């Protein structure tokens, strides 16, 4: 996960439409956009896309290989794998979007405050972030879900906490530069309140690298959710997530290897898509462009 250069990127964010057009023209970021787009569509319209109920078992037809009636085969309880992959996108995107959004919002606020006010606020907040940052992210996510109990929401919380420092540091670094600029000083002199300055002036000018970071962390959030589910700490059965589908597949690698191919491919493709998209966004925001 490449961090964006800490030097200020003072570019007014391009219009969204121009951004999308730009992304679509470059083949790699177009691929990224397509992959992420497919996942989003699958997640939003799962009931319409999935052929059957993903939780409907069929004890006569367990471990069936891919066929015309079950395009991706059935799992160890006879449930349709394609339907579970489609619905699994919900868990992955739910966790990815929510955890990154939560980390971004809270982390950015922390970074804004620390960078703007400096001195003891900066010291206190950044030391807090350092404490979180000091833990290996895997261990911290595991510990939080183990303590709070296994569920999708707790997985979101855990991943959000683990990713807070990244946004906080990034936002702080950007804020330090931007808040020293003249137009910010001018607003202060004009008597605008701190909240107004931070949210209306500083934030729009630092959001570009935060968005890029967000898209990259989205990929890592999906991977984290996968291994939390794999360890039994994410969504509980029978809710399908790509991670817990992989976990169930391990015991059947000889009898039914397709049970592992499909969720594994799904995770791989969405992470690839997020990384391509993130790279593309970073290229679009690069002032040297």
């Amino acid at each position, binding site marked *: 996960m490449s961090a964006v250069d800490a030097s200020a990127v003072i570019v007014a964010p391009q219009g969204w439409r121009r951004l999308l057009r730009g992304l679509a023209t470059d083949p790699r970021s177009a691929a990224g956009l397509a992959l992420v787009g497919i996942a989003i569509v699958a997640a939003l319209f799962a009931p319409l896309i999935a052929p059957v109920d993903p*939780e*409907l*078992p069929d*004890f*006569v037809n*367990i471990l069936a290989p891919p066929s015309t009636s079950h395009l991706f085969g059935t799992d*160890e*309880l*006879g449930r349709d794998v394609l339907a579970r992959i489609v619905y699994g996108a919900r868990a992955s995107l739910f966790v990815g979007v929510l955890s990154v959004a939560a980390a971004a919002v809270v982390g950015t606020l922390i970074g804004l405050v620390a960078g703007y006010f400096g001195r003891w606020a900066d010291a206190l907040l950044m030391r807090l972030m350092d404490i979180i940052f000091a833990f290996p992210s895997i261990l911290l996510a595991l510990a939080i879900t183990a303590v709070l109990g*296994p569920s999708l929401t707790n997985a979101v919380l855990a991943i959000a906490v683990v990713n807070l420092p990244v946004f906080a540091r990034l936002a702080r670094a950007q804020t330090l530069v931007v808040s020293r600029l003249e137009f910010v000083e001018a607003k202060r002199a004009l008597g605008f309140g701190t909240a107004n300055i931070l949210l209306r002036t500083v934030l729009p000018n630092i959001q570009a690298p935060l968005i890029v970071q967000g898209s990259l962390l989205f990929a890592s959030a999906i991977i984290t959710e996968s291994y939390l589910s794999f360890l*039994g700490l994410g969504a*509980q*059965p*029978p809710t399908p997530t790509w991670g817990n589908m992989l*976990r*169930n597949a*391990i*015991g*059947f*690698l*000889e*009898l039914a290897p397709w049970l592992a191919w499909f969720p594994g491919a799904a995770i791989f493709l969405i992470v690839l898509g997020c990384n391509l998209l993130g790279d593309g966004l970073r290229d679009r925001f690069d002032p040297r462009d």
Partner: protein
Amino acid sequence: MSINLKRRNVATLIAGAPFIGMLPAQALAQGAKTLTIGVVSDPVTLDPALMASFFELSVQFNLHEPLVNVTPELKIEPGLASVANPDPLTYRFTLRPNLTFHDGTPIDAAAAKANFDRMMDPATGSPRRSELAPVESVEVNGPLTFTIKLKAPYAPLLQVLANRAGMLVSPAALKALGPDFATKAVGAGPYKLVSWTKNAELVLERFPGYWRGAPAIERVVFRPISDETVRLANLRSGTVQLVDAVPAQAVGQLSREATITLKQTSGLGFSAFSFNNTRAPFNDARVRQAFTSAIDKQSVLRAVNFGTGKVASGGIPPSIGWAHDPNFAPSKTSVEGSRKLLADAGITTPVPVTITVTNSPAQVRTAEVLQAQANAAGFKVDIKQIDPTSLITVLRAKDFDMCMSPWSGRADPDGNLFNYFTKSGPNNFMGYQSDKVTALLEKARAEPDQATRAKLYREAETQIAADAPMLFLTFPATLQASAKALEWVQYPDGAFRLQFAKFS
């Protein structure tokens, strides 16, 4: 010059060949001194008086030796002692002479009595107390002889003494170690404890003073590997040479592998789920019956056991032939029947239920099958996963709606029913209070005639099925596998007795 060198090289090779040939054999011999076993989980305690969980089974018969032994055909034969049974209330034991515990202290009648006194003392809190409830007294008659006198005839006594209740431990060590005895047990088995690093390995080494003589294998290492796939992978790679609890879906593949021996036998135990009879919703028998009638046990057998084992409607497996009734089918699967029962009970549907299981894939899969079928009948089931060592705590605290209650099984039906279904039975996690069943089970254990006992057990099972305090699912087969080079004996209860094992 070059020809001479070549000749020298060839000569060296020829001279060295025997040594090279010996190396692999020597490595094998070194390896053959240690048997590493992949088991599901660490034991909770090594003190037979306090053992109450599934996970001690793999270790217990290697560290400890009971007074009498059960053969794979479920016959009783002498262990530390031989036994005479002059009348139904008297059992006279004669210990083998010149035996010592692992710490060198003698195995004599006084030690035996000390063991029994401890197990039957309420202060010890031993689960063996209820297994020994009919014992009136233990009298020492001589240095190696003692007599157990019963209050009433007790048919399962020898079966009980062939298990944890008959495993003698060193009283001197008990006194010296106090509560540490649980992790440093000193017994009389074929192996003595070297070290126990929890969740890593439990190391035993052979005890030359064992009554059958020192076992063939010098060292035994138990490695807890909770993931069944990883356990199998370790067996295939040779890291372990024996594994417990082979997953049922691997049976087909394993039986075709040349380097692995798969052993399968009818088990003695059952796979079941306890209902919590002490609180809603399962304090109402109709709700329990509704859940039971929603379950098609053949689906469980198919999806979880992959056709191994048998469907269970009660606690007595087919392997206890004289007491098992193959025609016992107390209930039919019926979703409409379930819904009607729930309506009769006046409970609002869907009824929320949490099923607690350990995180073993087979148990989770079982819970998912139950969930799918119960949800179709008016329940709303959630699955809660806990780690294996917490299971016994959850069961005892009755902190569950439904919880897995597997039982490894005993050679006598009393061993499968009494502790579960009598009012004060130590395994009565369900909170089941039935005077009728308690009376029937107490009568059955005191009845000397086998045919009468069978009838009493049938009556008890019929009542239990009507009350449905527990959901019986299957009688699982015992599935274990080893490296081809290991010769060993499989027992129906799935416990390892490594005094009979050797590397060929």
